[in-house]
């Protein structure tokens, strides 16, 4: 399957809708163990990308993703904004020169996205962060693509992996960022950052699974 420019446009428009729909939910989760601005920054950042994506004149999908990333970094320089921006920029750089993505390149997109987030945030799986929903999804997708499964099925499984990953954050203690001051108090609460990660995967899933 080939993911083209039109699909990427739809994915980012869908992501804008998802983040706006979940604005209050993210704010509530974040207020419990963070500073409560996550719903605001994610809805602001991703609806900005949704509004500009169709107007960016760029055939190279790698460059397009890099541009979307740097736009996100400028629109919402909060912790999560910068992390998601770093993922997009890293993935964009890695996939430069492609006007469409095949299955392997989609797997490479998520792989590089997660690496970008981990490098920027100096985090790893198990720290109760956005990585805990992104990493399992990326690993699942990589495996499915290696097995030669249809991308629609692969993205479905990756989405499920992100849902499970998100659930696993409930029993973890925060060690990063503002949430770290709550450490043990954060146990029992779903991580707001990992929720964003799951919603991000959801945007891709909703578009690709229905192609």
């Amino acid at each position, binding site marked *: 399957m080939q993911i083209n420019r039109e699909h990427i446009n739809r994915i980012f428009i869908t992501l804008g809708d998802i983040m706006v729909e979940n604005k209050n939910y993210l704010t509530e989760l974040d207020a419990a163990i963070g500073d409560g601005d996550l719903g605001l920054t994610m809805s602001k950042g991703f609806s900005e990308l949704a509004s500009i994506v169709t107007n960016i004149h760029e055939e190279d999908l790698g460059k397009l993703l890099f541009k979307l990333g740097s736009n996100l970094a400028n629109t919402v320089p909060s912790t999560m904004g910068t992390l998601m921006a*770093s993922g997009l920029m890293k993935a964009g750089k890695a996939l430069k020169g492609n006007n469409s993505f095949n299955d392997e390149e989609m797997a490479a997109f998520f792989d590089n996205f997660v690496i970008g987030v981990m490098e*920027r945030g100096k985090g790893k799986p198990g720290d109760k962060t956005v990585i805990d929903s992104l990493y399992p999804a990326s690993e699942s997708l990589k495996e499915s693509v290696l097995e030669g499964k249809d991308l629609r099925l692969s993205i479905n499984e990756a989405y499920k992996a992100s849902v499970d990953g998100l659930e696993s954050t409930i029993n973890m203690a925060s060690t990063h960022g503002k949430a770290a001051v709550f450490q043990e108090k954060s146990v029992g609460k779903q991580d707001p950052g990992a929720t964003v990660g799951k919603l991000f995967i959801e945007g891709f899933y909703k578009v690709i699974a229905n192609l």
Partner: protein
Amino acid sequence: MKRILNKPENYADETLKGIYKAHSDMVTYVNDDLRCYVKKDIKPGRVGIATGGGSGHLPVFLGYVGEGMIDGCSVGGVFQSPSANQMFEVTKAINAGAGVLYIYGNYTGDIMNFDMAAEMADMESDIRVESVVGADDVASAKKGEEHKRRGVAGIFYMFKIAGAAADEMMDLDNVKRVAEKVGANVRTMGVALSPCIIPEIGKANFTVEDGMMELGMGIHGEPGIDKGPLKTANEIVEIMLDNILGDNPLKAGDEVSVLVNSLGGTPKEELYIMYNKVEETLTNLGIKVVKTYLGEFATSMEMVGASLTILKLDEETKRLLLKPAHTPFFSQK
């Protein structure tokens, strides 16, 4: 609470506009962006020093841009990081051919954005950038986990001393070395008596009840180490000194500089009451106070409370500390 405002959402930008008008001889902005604050006269060949961080802490961070101190500052919304692009614009504007040193507080959002800005400076403009983070708050993480500590008022000493080093035309590696030395020898501890309110939010998102105090509370309301009934000034100073000297021991004959800082709502009288006890205790221990600073250096808007910072000096840092400096918020002959 009562505030003199126009629109809460304009808090940071209208503050900046006022500063540019009041101090147009010394500072300006670049890239048509009020949030990219730079010194007017950039000395050729001197290492540039940039900082940045959220609004709501004046004079931190931009207040130390000026003669003998730092060259530029990117400014975020209240308690929010500026963007990597704003940091990059400041970097380009202050680079005078000798590279740029970033000195900023140890907060996740700021670290990620400054790292990204340093990559942009390297990739797009071939500017060499080095970074040092301020992490002086002893109450924010225990000994052995210094890298997790928050940056508070002690960053003033990094700006002052690294700035003087850059003025002596030291190269980037040496200015960084001096800044790191200050970081390794400076300790701060604070106490909060009342919270602060972010104008756009309009209500406090943490509390310090009437008659209570919170030792070690962060300048954004991060939880401290001990919440209890308000103690006397002397008792508070004793606890602060115990924590600071317990973390970075001093011996008779050592020379230090002391900074007693108001978090915004505590008047100078009370800072002097604190200093009276600080000086007495240090003198009894045979420690010499070479230079004292007292007033508002790193605040949280209207928060009532104070912090005590002690910097252990050596010959080099002492010489650089005593050099003149002049900015819109700080002057020393």
